[in-house]
């Protein structure tokens, strides 16, 4: 519900609780299990041109792919178009899948490239995935000393946070979505995006700082309802 406050939780997947508790389990959207024999068979059959097998792969992965697209663009119609384009690309390229990485990881990377290409077409400040992952120190938000504390430990306004995430550059948004929302670990993100683990950690940290900065700049009554 737009405008409603989001109550704070004690911790997130990437930020261990200050009481030392373990990080939360991966979000429901993320597949943490190895591929089933049915999926392995479906991949092989789809590579051989079996249409029914391809529809099975769609059924297995549609939720994660659609959710990723929606989280990246924040618009249902665009997310549907991007999901369609991702599966069309998959259909064109599935014969090139060699099983060197998990199929879900491969499909995810393919989808990320589709999303970034679309954002670039729209003229947003998006560069290639590799460039998006390059550290840009001069763009990083300043350190926090001397600045007033935000002290968000109650609630964050939903719309303010949505706006702040939407205003992140694509590279920061991608890392934030993959880690904090999708629940991927830094080593998985590094594999998916072809960057270093250190780069992934650093980009995520900068994304969170930028969000904090954006929320801090909200009018007080909007920032904390």
């Amino acid at each position: 519900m737009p405008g409603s406050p989001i109550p704070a939780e004690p911790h997130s997947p990437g930020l261990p609780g200050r009481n030392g508790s373990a990080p939360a389990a991966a979000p429901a959207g993320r597949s943490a299990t190895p591929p089933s024999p049915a999926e392995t068979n479906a991949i092989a059959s789809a590579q051989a041109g079996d249409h029914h097998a391809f529809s099975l792969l769609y059924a297995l992965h549609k939720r994660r792919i659609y959710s990723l697209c929606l989280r990246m663009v924040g618009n249902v119609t665009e997310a549907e178009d991007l999901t369609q384009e991702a599966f069309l690309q998959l259909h064109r390229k599935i014969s090139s899948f060699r099983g060197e990485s998990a199929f879900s990881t491969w499909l995810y990377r393919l989808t990320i490239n589709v999303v970034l290409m679309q954002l670039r077409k729209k003229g947003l400040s998006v560069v290639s995935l590799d460039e998006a992952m390059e550290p840009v120190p001069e763009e990083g938000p300043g350190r926090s000393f001397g600045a007033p504390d935000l002290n968000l430990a109650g609630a964050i306004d939903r719309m303010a946070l949505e706006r702040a995430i939407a205003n992140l550059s694509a590279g920061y948004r991608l890392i934030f979505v993959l880690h904090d929302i999708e629940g991927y670990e830094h080593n998985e993100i590094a594999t998916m995006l072809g960057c270093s683990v250190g780069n992934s950690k650093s980009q995520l940290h900068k994304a969170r700082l930028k969000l904090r900065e954006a929320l801090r700049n909200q009018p007080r009554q909007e920032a904390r309802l």
Partner: protein
Amino acid sequence: MNDHRDQASCADFQERLADLIGSGEDLSAHPHLQTCDRCRALLADLETIAAAARQLFPSVEPPDDLWRQIESAIIEEDQSE
């Protein structure tokens, strides 16, 4: 003088914060956080933002008719080859 020392200490801590958070270790016992309200508040804010964002975007199913659109596009592509 003390301010300069404090800022240097905060700068050092925040410089390493991405790695510290990424390591998944419990930061509550970190010596700097024992004495620095500002960095403790920063960490709390980052935790709150990450937790709130997870609630903001639940995983959702695409509409049922999306497969039919994809299927039609695939058939169209296959026929044009």
